[in-house]
């Protein structure tokens, strides 16, 4: 009995320090989560906790008696003298219901020349003070107020060292004049507007070299009240203060219809606006410092007969909807958020000033040079002639100088080439096939296979006809113990010498709303069984800016190893005797993390591939091949890596240059007769010419490398 009591006493948990502090402070209300009675009972028994409470109370009591320094009389005299000399300071508001103004601040302790003060003060709720080493530094300040409770302030101040925004509690188009603004305008010609999605990258070489920001613009059809609209979505990718802006235009007139913007991050707000006749109505809902507010927007648009654009970063839409020529000139207006009276219209003047060829990341593109100006701000934009995509922007204002927008992704709405499935290769460095099996009393042995190959044929038009093959090199088994790995490779387990590969060949893929089920044949240790593998689509298929399309799945599978004849023996390791062997569980949990990729040739950079393709286009395949053949063997080896020539052949095939691709692959096979990949690609190129030759090439590839899953998959498909 006594030891039970001791056990119970030992197992007593002390209240948290937070609970003890709450108990000590006595400032507890009904919402106090602390179990006061429980703490009190504990204190009766626990001396150390009692001491904590007593010490806390003593400290709190002493703290209330702390005295401060004596207020120096000279301080008051200095204040009175400075005040009579005209010095002023703006103080934060001390009303209990006001927002605390903590962010966006500049130096607070300030003596501001009285003239400047008068500009900023003007009865606004939020006041800011600037102490400058000398008053001349502050050149100008301007404030706008929003005439409602709680009072807010939006404005900017010009500083000798460049622009900065003093404070802006609610976002307004005042941002349009800050360095971070992107010029916003709209489409002019509804017939030229097309759906699409573009990713672009902003580089700010002048300010933070190396800083790249990515954004995406998407144009998609929408409807509202039966009216067809174009929805334009604009968002930064992965930005901490993510902003998603959606503007909807009437599909026929391109009149602004409505707008919704949402910002996540530390300060959140949601804006919804409708454009009705000559007015903007809507509301800005903001959550700042956990206090929600709603700010109504009711503004009349000035009657200036201009076209109005809205939002940030809609440059793409604008130029996609305009037919540029050498004499082109237009005027539009940027509509602000209507949160402050002056926040409505920024007239923007646009004019084609040049016809040039732009080189970005090695590609030469014919482009128009367009000058854009709004007030003192001027920007030059280079617009690709082919489709109106802006490629580069250079601005004049402060830190804005030297902006470059590099388009990193072509429009992705074009259909995949003639509906054929797209082949994705397994990306072994971003995939994982692991397993876990129980052993002895509750132990687990975990391991993985390092050597993975695979091909996924994704058929966008007929998803159910997609298929996948995977090959695992069994000898790459890795359980973190090389001795155990040797045992597992031996005849006792996997018998790698006889059965070097494990394969999974899908028979059916059923795409569900959430999960996808792969049903197929799993071959291992000479035994083939049908397994059902539910997987979850983790990402994709989507194009990433580095020039690849990716798609990723994960899933788990439980198999019975004895079904595959993997029984476990002690030939290799006598320690693993019958008794220990019997404790090794039959069921093995397999976890799969599979990433597949395929190159987007329009975006992916590969100098050799691009050079080959460009020269074939310019001079024809014969000239290119004879030039290649003329190269010495060592130069061929150095400058014509097999990977790049194969990729060049694939790109030529994609471009419809089938015969050129076949010629190039035949040459590659002459150079590398045992290259399974070259035979596989040649087979694929031959499919539309001669299916029997294609089959033969696939078979040759598989004979050279049984794990050449690209050939396996296409061969399978051709057979069907």
């Amino acid at each position, binding site marked *: 009995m006594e030891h039970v009591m001791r056990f119970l006493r030992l197992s007593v948990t002390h209240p948290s320090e937070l609970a003890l502090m709450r108990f000590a402070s006595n400032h507890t209300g009904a919402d106090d989560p602390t179990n006061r009675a429980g703490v009190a009972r504990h204190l009766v028994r626990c001396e150390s906790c009692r001491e904590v409470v007593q010490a806390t109370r003593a400290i709190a009591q002493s*703290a209330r008696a702390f005295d401060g320094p*004596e207020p*120096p009389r000279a*301080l008051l005299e200095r204040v*009175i003298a400075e*005040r009579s000399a005209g010095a002023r300071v703006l103080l934060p508001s001390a009303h209990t219901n006001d927002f*605390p103004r903590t962010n966006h601040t500049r130096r607070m*302790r300030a003596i501001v020349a009285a003239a400047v003060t008068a500009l900023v003060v003007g009865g606004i709720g939020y006041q800011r*003070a600037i102490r400058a080493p000398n008053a001349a530094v502050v050149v100008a300040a301007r404030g706008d107020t929003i005439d409602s409770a709680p009072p807010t302030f939006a404005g900017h101040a010009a500083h000798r060292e460049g622009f900065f925004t003093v404070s802006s509690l609610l976002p307004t188009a005042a941002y349009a004049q800050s360095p971070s603004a992107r010029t916003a305008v709209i489409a002019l010609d509804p017939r030229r507007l097309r759906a699409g999605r573009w990713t672009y990258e902003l580089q700010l070489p002048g300010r933070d070299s190396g800083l790249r920001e990515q954004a995406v613009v998407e144009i998609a059809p929408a409807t509202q009240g039966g009216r067809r609209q174009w929805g334009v979505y604009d968002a930064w990718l992965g930005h901490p203060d993510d902003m998603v802006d959606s503007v909807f235009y009437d599909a026929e007139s391109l009149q602004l219809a409505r707008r919704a913007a949402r910002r996540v991050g530390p300060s959140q707000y949601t804006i919804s606006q409708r454009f009705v006749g000559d007015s903007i109505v809507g509301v800005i809902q903001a959550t700042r410092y956990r206090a929600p507010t709603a700010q109504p927007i009711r503004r009349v648009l000035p009657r200036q007969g201009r076209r109005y654009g809205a939002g940030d970063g809609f440059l793409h839409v604008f130029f996609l909807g305009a037919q540029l020529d050498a004499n082109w000139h237009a005027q539009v207006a940027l509509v602000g958020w209507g949160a402050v009276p002056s926040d409505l219209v920024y007239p923007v003047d646009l004019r084609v000033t040049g016809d040039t060829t732009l080189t970005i990341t090695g590609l030469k593109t014919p482009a128009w040079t367009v000058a854009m100006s709004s007030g003192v701000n001027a920007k030059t934009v280079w617009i690709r002639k082919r489709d109106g995509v802006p490629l580069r922007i250079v601005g004049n204002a402060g830190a804005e100088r030297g902006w470059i927008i590099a388009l990193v992704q072509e429009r992705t709405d074009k259909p995949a080439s003639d509906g054929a499935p797209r082949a994705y290769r397994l990306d072994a460095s971003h995939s994982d096939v692991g397993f876990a099996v129980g052993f002895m009393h509750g132990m687990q042995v975990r391991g993985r296979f390092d050597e993975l190959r695979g091909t996924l044929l994704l058929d966008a038009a007929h998803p159910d006809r997609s298929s996948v093959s995977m090959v695992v090199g069994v000898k790459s088994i890795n359980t973190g113990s090389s001795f155990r790995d040797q045992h597992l490779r031996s005849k006792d387990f996997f018998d790698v010498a006889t059965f070097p590969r494990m394969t999974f060949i899908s028979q059916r893929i059923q795409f569900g709303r959430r999960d996808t089920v792969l049903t197929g044949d799993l071959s291992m240790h000479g035994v083939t069984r049908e397994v059902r593998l539910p997987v979850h689509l983790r990402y994709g298929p989507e194009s990433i800016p580095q020039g690849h399309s990716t798609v990723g799945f994960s899933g788990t599978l439980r198999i019975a190893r004895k079904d595959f004849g993997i029984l476990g023996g002690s030939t290799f390791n006598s320690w693993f005797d019958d008794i220990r062997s019997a404790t090794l569980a039959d069921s093995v949990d397999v976890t799969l993390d599979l990433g597949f990729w395929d190159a987007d040739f329009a975006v992916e950079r590969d100098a050799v591939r691009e050079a080959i393709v460009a020269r074939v286009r310019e001079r024809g395949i014969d000239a290119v091949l004879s030039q290649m053949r003329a190269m010495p063997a060592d130069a061929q080896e150095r400058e014509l890596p097999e990977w790049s020539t194969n990729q060049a052949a694939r790109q030529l095939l994609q471009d419809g240059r089938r015969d050129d691709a076949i010629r190039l692959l035949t040459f590659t096979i002459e150079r590398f007769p045992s290259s399974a990949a070259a035979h596989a690609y040649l087979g694929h190129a031959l499919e539309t010419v001669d299916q029997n030759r294609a089959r033969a090439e696939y078979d040759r590839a598989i004979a050279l490398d049984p794990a050449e899953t690209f050939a396996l998959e296409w061969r399978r498909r051709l057979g069907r």
Partner: protein
Amino acid sequence: MSADIDTSSMSDARIIAAVRSGDGRALGVLYERFARPMLRVAYQLTGSVADAEDVMHDVFLGLPDALRRYEERGQLAAWLQRLTTRTALNALRTTARRRERTIDGERGAAGAMDPNGATSTASVTTAPAMTTRDASAVVAASIDLHQALLSLPDSLRTVFVLREIEQYSHAEIAQMLDISVSASEIRLCRAFKRLRATSRSG
């Protein structure tokens, strides 16, 4: 406003009116009546006499304008205390930023431990330890505790001062410091823990 009015007996309302109109003597009356608790909170929040006096300087310089926004619906003393608190918190943020850039000896460990050493920029100073009290053991312990408080990190000290001395609720503190209510409570708990450690070791 005639010169012979005895400003020391004026009501708050009349002083406010006089200060608003720019009367320097009325500002002096406010200073006499309220400066001591204001300077104390500024000192405890910034942890430095020099910074506290800068805060007081700004507050009194801006007071005639700020009082135009004062609505006589609460206690003037409480309003002034809040004004000082907010100004001091702003000042603390800017000094924190400044300290990130330059190693500032003024508010280093030695400065916090010895307020007298930190007053090179202030015109007149009296350290809290120099107040007219018996130097009994209890008071000495209290002074040690006060210095321990001043040497706490800003994040803990501000919460402790606002909650335990200025008696703001955790919800108000959370709003003033832009942290969550539970973060305020946890910081207070950590401040107590450090102060307990000081009083034990002392």
